[in-house]
């Protein structure tokens, strides 16, 4: 069974630039999550989708972060413009609808200089 795919694995950008991350969940998983993991901390939820609708984006900095999940499958997370404090690992996870077991992708390590 294919796992959660994410790309790119690494990205280095300068502050004020924009960046986008891509996530492809496990086939059949209706729920998709984006987490931000700052060095030395546990992951923190940014946004949760159920199919192509947003369930929870209360911790998403909406002035600079945006996310979409067109057609209820793949998802992209964008940061524009990036700040130094956005340096982190961005993890995508997915799960079956109504199931509390999440499968994580390998993450994207973002460095903002």
């Amino acid at each position: 069974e294919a796992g959660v795919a994410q790309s790119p694995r690494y990205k280095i950008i300068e502050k004020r630039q924009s960046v986008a991350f891509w996530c492809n969940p496990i086939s059949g998983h209706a729920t998709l999550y984006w987490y931000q993991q700052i060095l030395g901390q546990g992951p923190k939820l940014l946004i949760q989708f159920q199919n192509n609708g947003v369930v929870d984006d209360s911790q998403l900095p909406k002035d600079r972060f945006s996310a979409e999940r067109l057609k209820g499958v793949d998802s992209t997370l964008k940061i524009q413009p990036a700040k130094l404090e956005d340096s982190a690992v961005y993890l995508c996870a997915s799960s079956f609808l109504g199931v509390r077991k999440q499968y994580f992708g390998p993450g994207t390590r973002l460095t903002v200089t």
Partner: protein
Amino acid sequence: AQTVTQSQPEMSVQEAETVTLSCTYDTSENNYYLFWYKQPPSRQMILVIRQEAYKQQNATENRFSVNFQKAAKSFSLKISDSQLGDTAMYFCAFIDSGYALNFGKGTSLLVTP
């Protein structure tokens, strides 16, 4: 606010020995789910074990077991017969309302020969 506390930032254990990682949490909900995730240097978050709060019996997965004390809001992880491949960050997490995971800051476990 829901919180997860892992009081041991780093731990070390010799191969074949047993180690226990501590976790306490705070929630006002009566029904919730508890998890231990392992994150090796590859950054892939891997589910180690999970426990439903309504179940009194402690969960066990091969060499991994938990000590769930609901009244004390404590959820410790015991790793028996530690192996070199157990070296990783270990995160305690829970889900109460909704489906998003609330993580602690993690415990770095080093297994030495």
